[in-house]
């Protein structure tokens, strides 16, 4: 429940155009539901056609796109379908992640190909998809709609946890990429954030740490609500600053 009217403003995201990768399970699915719930237009991406069809079937209005962000050749087909479905883009959430070897392995035991696969999904994928969609995000910023890229990070991006080498390295790189890109794109009116959702009860967490009692973990719905709040506040701030920029005489 939300306590005051300011929070209610952030609950309503009508017309906001949001794309989410890895949208058929865990945090990604919770984000699809949260943004739909707030009235946003949502397109999501996932690899398996059956999974995409299922989520589309259960969530009226969501646009499902089959694609693999780790493959360079899939990037433009994904971007085209996002932009055709939404008519533009205000928010890109790079959520799709690859954990790497399971059970988790020491770095010295990690196959080179496993590390490459993790970097392809967790680092190159967000880089390439953001690059392909940057023109659309910049147009959105120029039109005063706000433009946000949210990269899903992890505490493993900051802390050096043994056996989390491939995943932690990829998330540390993604975190730094986000910070640099944010500095470079501020002048274009685009914000790039990297946020850690915390330890959640998701299929990926079960794969990484099967012995943990899931009831002790954060619900993905909670993290999705926090992320949606963060995006909503940023977009509202961007809209307010751009409104100030256009005096009535120039309308």
């Amino acid at each position, binding site marked *: 429940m939300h306590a005051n009217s300011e929070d209610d403003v952030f609950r309503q995201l009508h017309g906001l155009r949001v794309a989410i990768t890895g949208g058929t399970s865990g945090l990604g699915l919770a984000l699809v539901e949260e943004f739909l719930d707030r009235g946003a237009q949502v397109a999501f991406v996932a690899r398996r056609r059956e999974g995409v069809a299922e989520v589309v079937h259960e969530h009226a209005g969501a646009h499902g796109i089959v694609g693999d962000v780790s493959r360079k050749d899939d990037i433009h087909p994904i971007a085209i379908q996002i932009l055709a479905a939404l*008519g533009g883009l205000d928010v890109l959430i790079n959520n799709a992640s690859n954990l790497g070897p399971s059970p988790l392995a020491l770095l010295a035991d990690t196959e080179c190909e496993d590390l490459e696969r993790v970097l392809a999904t967790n680092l190159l994928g967000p880089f390439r998809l953001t690059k*392909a969609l940057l*023109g659309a995000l910049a*147009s959105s910023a120029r039109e*005063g709609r706000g433009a946000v890229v949210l990269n899903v990070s992890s505490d493993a991006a900051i802390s050096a946890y043994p056996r989390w080498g491939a995943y932690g390295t990829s998330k540390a790189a993604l975190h730094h990429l986000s910070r640099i890109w944010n500095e470079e794109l501020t002048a*274009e009116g685009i914000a790039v954030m990297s946020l850690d959702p915390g330890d959640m009860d998701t299929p990926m967490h079960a794969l990484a740490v099967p012995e943990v009692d899931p009831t002790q973990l954060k619900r993905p719905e909670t993290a999705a609500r926090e992320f949606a709040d963060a995006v909503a506040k940023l977009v509202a701030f961007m809209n307010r600053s751009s409104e100030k920029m256009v005096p009535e005489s120039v309308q």
Partner: protein
Amino acid sequence: MIAAPLPIQRPADAKLLVVDGRGRVTHRSRSRFVDLLRCGDLVVANDAATMPASLRGEHLRSGQPVEVRIAGRDSLAAESIRSCIAVVFGRGDFRVRTEERPTPPKMDGGDMLTLGPLRATVAAILGHPRLVRLTFDGSVDEIWEGIARHGRPIQYSYVTLPLALWDVWTPIAGPPVAFEPPSAGFALDWSTLASFNRRGVQFATITHAAGISSTGDAELDARLPFDEPYYIPPATARAVKCARVRGGRIVSIGTTVVRALEHAAQPDGMVRAGAGLATQRIGRATRLRIVEAMFSGTHEPGTSHYELLRAFVVAGVLHRMDEELAVGDYRTHEFGDSVFVEAMEMRHRPVRAAVSSSLERGCARILRKDGRCRRR
């Protein structure tokens, strides 16, 4: 001119032919393009992304292979893709010169085509055996998925390796509505945009469904450019207004921006924001009302892009340009060298915009860099 055969958007040695408002021609390095801009100028580019508009498939009734090049649509709305105009070729692919491509099998209204995962009906033949209106089966999302996954960028034989969309999306590409890249925008990387900002040069975009540049058939080529839908964001219309107020020039990146802005020109010297369909031809008879300078590719006589240059310069200057391009070994086509052309005074007829003091103050608030211009 020779064709640029490699799909490199920003070659380090790209050349720029500069024609000033008095018809004087000079040569520069394209990387110095930004030096030609003045504080207060407004640069307008086309942010259309290029769709993979070439679809290979089969004409079902004859069993013959075809290549369909989507070449026109009625609006920029995503659902307008359902019914579009296309140029159809017979056997072969981009490796064969367009002029030498076999004609497609004889098509009649109602014929079906299978194009990878897509199915389309020939809704009408549009006065030429290669030009048709197609209607795709399926939902709008399904049609876009089919095009996105099965389509290839339209390509010509002078580029020998198959193009990827990575090669043809400009750095600023947004809505996937262009059939061929608005290639003047290849030069605009993000570093260039940042340098505009530092110099007090404003930047804005329009979205214009840039059409195909050649069909390989003289009769069809004479019908180019087809009607092209465009969209001018309110922020861009405001930027034009404010550039007028402060006496800055409107500089277009590419021919499509000229077509859209001039189509949307209002009697008061401003442009109308919103969606439109550019139907006009720009040439000798055109008096430019908005655009004062254009950065563009190099164009060969006989093309509609070349004719558009006649709106900027008189025939004698155009002739001199041709000579200088030839002597300077300029490369042509989408990955080639560039020209920067200022409209000669007699070609440009700006309307003196009515400027109120509140409009002036409002624009100054938007462009906080005004002070910097004055100090220079």
